[in-house]
């Protein structure tokens, strides 16, 4: 079907199958349509259907909260066209050529499942076609057995990669995480749409790195730290990782983080912040390069980093409330300009 989008910066046409979503089809064609979560929660990808009609996948998506549905407002990440459509998008949009990095649909098989803690699983996807993506990007996964897509950041990164690595945290009432935790899903097929997201690391920027992550938000940070470590970035720059979990035993990927810190002669510092338990010591009993702190991860970062925000880029990922707290620290305390604050806020 033919989709025409009127934007603040011009009019664009693209084709969208009845099975695809307006947002995804537009992104695949290189349009920089606005989005953040791409899964219905944030509301950033709003558009107004002026002519034509679309089926809405997730009618109760939280992102609809501020939209005027009686006027045809839709979340483009939830709308599948049922006819040609004319859609208004209140944002500046440009068409870019992708050099092989535009998001696309791929299929993938789940394998290499491994439990990391009581409620966190590491899993990998074998892709039908290789994908190139930056450290810090994410994809939307959709399983036939579970309604709707879920956004997950990759732990890895690279050019023409044929495997994606993820962590998933079990969430009360989370349909996708329940599916992962309650079933033997090894070998199952999922749809992968991506790569997505602009919370990416660019070594050429030459900034010191500050990462603040909660729970499975550490995934994207690990890819950023690995990218930096591979390029010997910490020879000339500092890095700080603040990783928030509830208790000491909820920590994961600590061995990897500890190894990265050990390689950098102190220029990469890793702190595990425990929100629901008093830390037993100043450093982790098993991982000597990981410092322990009590309290919320954004507070731990603020206490530690005060006066050390020189030439910095900040990365934030985790539950929305944690991300909001960390963004306030980076804007108010660190005084970082918005272009050097990058975040993913997944619900």
């Amino acid at each position, binding site marked *: 079907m033919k989709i025409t989008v009127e934007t603040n910066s011009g009019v664009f046409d693209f084709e969208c199958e009845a099975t695809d979503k307006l947002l995804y089809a537009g992104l695949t064609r290189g349009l920089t349509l606005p989005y953040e979560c791409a899964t219905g929660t944030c509301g950033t990808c709003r558009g107004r259907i002026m002519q034509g009609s679309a089926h809405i996948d997730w009618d109760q998506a939280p992102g609809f909260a501020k939209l005027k549905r009686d006027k045809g407002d839709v979340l483009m990440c939830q709308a599948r066209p049922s006819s040609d459509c004319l859609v208004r998008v*209140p944002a500046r949009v440009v068409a870019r050529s992708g050099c092989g990095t535009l998001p696309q649909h791929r299929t993938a098989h789940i394998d290499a499942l491994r439990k990391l803690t009581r409620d966190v699983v590491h899993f990998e996807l074998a892709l039908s076609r290789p994908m190139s993506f930056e450290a810090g990007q994410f994809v939307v996964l959709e399983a036939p057995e579970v309604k709707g897509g879920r956004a997950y950041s990759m732990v890895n990164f690279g050019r023409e990669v044929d495997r994606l690595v993820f962590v998933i945290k079990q969430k009360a009432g989370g349909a996708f995480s329940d599916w992962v935790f309650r079933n033997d899903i090894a070998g199952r097929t999922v749809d992968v749409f991506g790569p997505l997201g602009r919370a990416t690391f660019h070594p050429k920027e030459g900034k010191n790195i500050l990462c603040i992550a909660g729970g499975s938000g550490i995934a994207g940070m690990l890819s950023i730290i690995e990218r930096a470590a591979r390029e010997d970035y910490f020879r000339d720059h500092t890095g700080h990782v603040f990783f928030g979990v509830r208790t000491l035993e909820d920590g994961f990927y600590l061995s990897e983080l500890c190894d990265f810190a050990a390689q950098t002669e102190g220029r990469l510092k890793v702190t595990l912040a425990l929100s629901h338990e008093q830390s037993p010591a100043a450093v982790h009993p098993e991982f000597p390069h990981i410092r322990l702190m009590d309290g919320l991860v954004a507070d731990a970062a603020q206490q530690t980093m005060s006066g050390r925000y020189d030439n910095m880029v900040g990365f934030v990922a985790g539950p929305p409330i944690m991300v909001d707290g960390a963004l306030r620290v980076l*804007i108010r305390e660190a*005084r970082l*300009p918005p272009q050097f*604050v990058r975040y993913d806020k997944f619900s």
Partner: protein
Amino acid sequence: MTWKRVCKVTDVPENTVKKFTVDKVTLLIANYGGGFRAIPPLCPHMQEPLEESGVIANCALTCTKHLWSWDLSSLDMLGETERPLQSYEVKLENGDILALIDKELVYEFEDEDDIKDDDFFSKA
């Protein structure tokens, strides 16, 4: 059009925003160090309440929800911000902040009664 007293200069410390209601018009006073601005209470992006989400640093007001940001000394849009910040004219008199309030400034997304559907795009 009349100048209306909003608050005392000392009511709004440097680098903070505070909400006031004057003759049924709700507005925020922002103290950016170099002066004061009187602005509508919602972010023009996605209606976040700037009293909670707004942070002032380096003369810039940033909504921490999606990082839209404006230079409060010039009202220029910063970074990827796509809509201008509206503001009431302000002046200081005897330690008070006064705002020139003719009618309440609202962003188009708040206009529920529009019939032409032209509220959807920003009028940059």
